[in-house]
């Protein structure tokens, strides 16, 4: 977590299956579409990322991680709970929608990325969707590497805020 990109990548990839399991279970309890589970996973990952400065490295990571996850899950539950219960027809539809999960989550998140401001959006596109490196992106956009890094960090914060407001308004 001290700036070692590869170790950090391994860590995030390692915790994701477990997060997905929790998210799917939570969606089932709430009667939310299973396609929402991947949204929750991404939202939790963003929270883990943006709040990683609150982890005291002398303490075990487990309790910290579960505290973050619990907070985010409670959050999603609260946001949906406000709009009452879900009719049974929807649940049937959800079951049918199960297999489409992959396509829909890609669409949802891409809509959020669209709402970012231009330089942030281009950077997110280049790095996540096209797999470009920071250096390459910086050259392409004629920015310094430092500026790209700062813009990326802001974009992630904006993305997390969009996730929150999006779910709150739409459902």
């Amino acid at each position, binding site marked *: *977590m*001290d*700036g*070692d*990109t*590869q170790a*950090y*990548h391994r860590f*995030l*990839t390692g915790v*994701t299956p477990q997060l*997905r399991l929790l998210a799917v279970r939570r969606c089932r309890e709430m009667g939310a579409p299973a396609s929402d589970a*991947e949204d929750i*996973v*991404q939202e939790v*990952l*963003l*929270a883990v*990322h*943006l*709040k*990683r*400065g*609150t*982890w*005291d490295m002398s*303490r075990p990571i487990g*309790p*910290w991680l*579960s*505290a*973050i996850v619990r*907070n985010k899950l409670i959050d999603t539950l609260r946001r949906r709970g406000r709009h009452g219960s879900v009719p049974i027809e929807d649940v049937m539809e959800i079951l049918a929608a199960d297999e489409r999960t*992959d396509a829909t*989550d*890609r669409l949802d*998140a*891409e809509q959020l*990325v669209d709402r970012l401001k231009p330089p942030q959006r281009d950077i*997110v596109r280049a*790095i*996540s*969707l096209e*797999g470009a*490196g*920071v250096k390459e992106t910086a050259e392409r956009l004629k920015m310094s590497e430092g500026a790209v*890094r700062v813009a*990326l*960090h802001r974009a*992630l914060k904006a993305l*997390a805020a969009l996730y*929150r407001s999006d779910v709150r308004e739409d459902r």
Partner: protein
Amino acid sequence: MKTDELISLLSVDAPVRRRLGQALAVALVVGVVISAVLLIGTVGLRHNLVSVFETARVLFKIGFTLLLAGVATLLAARIGRPDASARRPALLLLLPLASLVAAVAVELAVLPEEAWAASWEGAHAAFCVFFIPVLSLAPLLGILWAMREGAPRDPGLAGAAAGLAAGAIGGALYAWHCPDDSPLFVATWYTLGILIVASLGYLIGRRLLRW
């Protein structure tokens, strides 16, 4: 965006820029400097500061507010971590509280009964309740800004702790001007001013510190 694409995106942003503790330290220094300038620039320091500084009452007034500020800051920093228990710093709040109770008891024992009301009322009670929150504003905004780096389980509580710390800092600064030294005065009007700031912190924190 697929989840593994998001993960690649996040790992590019791997280095931690700011830790909660560092942000808090910066916020405190900046907030205290702004409020100190505000105090000196408006009402000024107490003119007989040097001569009264050694009296027990003045020492208590400054010591109590500083102690409260320290404990409340510790509490705010702890609440900002999602996995840390805030129970011990919360219990530490009993320390300033006990010292306040003890000082009031001593004051009541030392003063003749006829003097109680005058000491309690002081000379500038209303101004004190107004000016402590004013002096707390810069530290409050600073601490809340720093706490945005945090991940509190209860945003309202985190805001209240930030407000308590900021209010106590405001009180500690105001003590350099305030001519009312009786613990009876401090226990009533200082506490009232500090609690106003803590409530304000609660209200702001509930909205601002959600994540």
